[in-house]
């Protein structure tokens, strides 16, 4: 479990030299202490985090491959951001609500949602398919930053319903990226969360790029420092460190649920792949940069840690790889067998109870489709 003294967490003052952040596990797998944050996992829990990371990466790679083979329309890979997502995702308590972007496949996995769901979405078979209320994980948001406002409104509702306070209180986490930090919506969400003391954690995965634009095009100060101007704490965490990501998120959520208001976490990480499968990052960044970040890989360091601490052996690592492969293969088989939706469904879900012109168009389209029946005979 994590504990944190959030009053010391980041915030104002002078900018620390980069990349100063909360870190509990170095790239070499050394467990390091931090004055304010720690984790106290059982051996099994440490192994569980490793398993999550490996599976999440494997499923993501499978989705990318499926897109390349023409089986998905598009895919936004989380490659490189597994620790930020698994750490924060596992830090959520059951009652907490998450508002993701289109890249939060790792958080989705941690919420217990069948990983086929986003693939159904990007295959065009359904609109996501999961129940946000059952899993406490909202639908993916495509328009950059819009979900931070939804999350803020939802969090204000938690306060209004009297569900803030104590360990059972509820909190909200809003995911977004470095590019979104320049959006008016995100800044307005900060204002609102602050003045209404909403129980929300703004979790920014700074993966260094907004499509092609480097972080320098969005900000001159470390992003977490912006929180001070809005009147709530902000801190930067090593987003490639699953332990630190877990610790700071758990502390921030617990503070929010107890009525201490919003906070901003900047998870400092790196998008190792493309923005989406429509993008080619070699057009705007050099290979050596990727090499430098690969040395800070979020999975490698957990494996080194487990190894050094003798918490796992080769048999365990092999078994995790085998499980990941099995799940990926299973995912592929299920994606390929997903039926195309009936074309008439294009008229569904515009209005819950239909609408005159829409209904007329649906009827006309049904007649049109029916005109082909029998022509195959």
């Amino acid at each position: 479990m994590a504990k944190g003294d959030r009053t010391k967490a980041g915030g104002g003052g002078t900018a620390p030299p980069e990349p100063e952040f909360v870190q509990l596990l170095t790239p070499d797998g050394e467990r390091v202490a931090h004055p304010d944050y720690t984790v106290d996992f059982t051996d099994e829990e440490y192994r569980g985090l490793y398993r999550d990371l490996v599976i999440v990466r494997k499923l993501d790679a499978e989705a990318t491959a499926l897109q390349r083979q023409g089986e998905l329309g598009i895919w936004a890979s989380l490659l490189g951001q597994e620790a930020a997502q698994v750490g924060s995702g596992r830090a959520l308590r059951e009652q907490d609500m998450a508002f993701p972007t289109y890249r939060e496949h790792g958080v989705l996995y941690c919420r217990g949602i069948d990983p086929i769901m986003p693939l159904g979405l990007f295959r065009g078979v359904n609109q996501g398919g999961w129940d946000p209320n059952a899993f406490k994980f909202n639908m993916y948001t495509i328009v950059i930053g819009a979900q931070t406002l939804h999350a803020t409104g939802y969090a204000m509702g938690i306060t209004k319903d009297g569900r803030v306070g104590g360990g059972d209180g509820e909190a909200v986490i809003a995911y977004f990226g470095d590019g979104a930090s320049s959006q008016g919506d995100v800044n307005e969400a900060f204002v609102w969360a602050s003045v209404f003391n909403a129980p929300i954690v703004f979790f920014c995965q700074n993966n260094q790029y907004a499509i092609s634009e480097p972080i320098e095009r969005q900000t001159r100060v470390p992003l977490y420092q912006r929180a001070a101007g809005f009147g709530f704490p902000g801190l930067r965490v090593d987003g490639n460190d699953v332990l630190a990501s877990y610790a700071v998120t758990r502390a921030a959520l617990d503070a929010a649920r107890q009525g201490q208001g919003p906070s901003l976490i900047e998870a400092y990480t790196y998008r190792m792949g493309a923005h989406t499968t429509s993008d080619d990052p070699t057009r705007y960044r050099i290979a050596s940069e990727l090499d430098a970040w690969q040395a800070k890989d979020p999975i490698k360091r957990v494996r080194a840690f487990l190894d050094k601490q003798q918490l796992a052996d080769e048999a365990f690592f092999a078994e995790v790889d085998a499980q990941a492969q099995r799940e990926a293969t299973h995912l592929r088989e299920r994606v390929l067998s997903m039926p195309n939706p009936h074309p008439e469904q294009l008229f569904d879900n515009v209005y819950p109870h239909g609408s005159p012109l829409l209904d007329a168009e649906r009827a006309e389209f049904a007649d049109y489709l029916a005109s082909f029946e029998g022509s195959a005979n």
Partner: protein
Amino acid sequence: MADTTYREAIREAIREAMRRDERVFLMGEDVGPYGGAFGVSLGLLEEFGPERIRDTPLSESAFVGAGIGAALGGMRPIVEVMTVNFSLLALDQIINNAATLLHMSGGQFAVPLVIRMTTGAGRQLAAQHSHSLEGWYAHIPGLRILAPATVADARGMLWPALRCPDPVLIFEYGGLYNASGELDGGAAVDIDTAAVRRPGSDVTIIGYGGTLSTSLTAADRLADDGIDAEVVDLRTLRPLDDATLLDSVRRTHRAVIVDEGWRSGSLSAEISARITEQAFYDLDAPVARVCSAEVPIPYARHMEQAALPQPAGVVAAVRAALGRSDG
């Protein structure tokens, strides 16, 4: 005569404008080293440098608003908005500010700003990247709305747009970027008139942007059936060129409007109204419309195609207007 793509034609137009007028610059998301989300500005950073090809923070309202400021200060900015859907984040700057400043300043400040954006569906980008909202902008007094449908217009509309004192919105149809055509020199074109792209005598098919090719394809199929369709390309959505439209309809006595926007409260409704207001007694059939289904544009390819105007739908509408039964 050289074959060029719609994308290259726009790039060439930007390049020419930047060379001719040092007040011209381009700004938007990913327009620099990346060359724009749709590759339009590829190579321009290398030629003109980062002061004139400016990557901006991810702030639509800011880059449109800053463009207004630059235009007020005497510059001739070209603002690139990735898609029309994202222009909604800058609506206040476009509609409440750019479109009204001449009026609100008693005629002191024109806003010679050009905003380019991609519009249209058909590329499997889902509802929030695929809408055709240009007709909606055409509702707004103070704006001039252009919709190049040909390589020549893609090449030739930018310079007059930059010379125009109005805020000009240029809607580039996403499905056309790879389309190629012959370009004869690349002279500036007028941005006031509609164009008859195919003369005919039996019916007037009215399209623009992405629906021009839909209309022309339909016209070819109709020709096989002995129906001689005229195809009019609107080119400028505001102000509409009533004269060209009405002249055509008065000759053919029938009109079918093809618009990728929705029909309710739409540009196609406006055109239909103008025809019935001004040429009602010349009509031999009600004005017909072929528009997108009244749904958010679906993501699944087969449903997306079913939701969009297709040549078959235009052919059917024309046949109905001519009183010919299908089959």
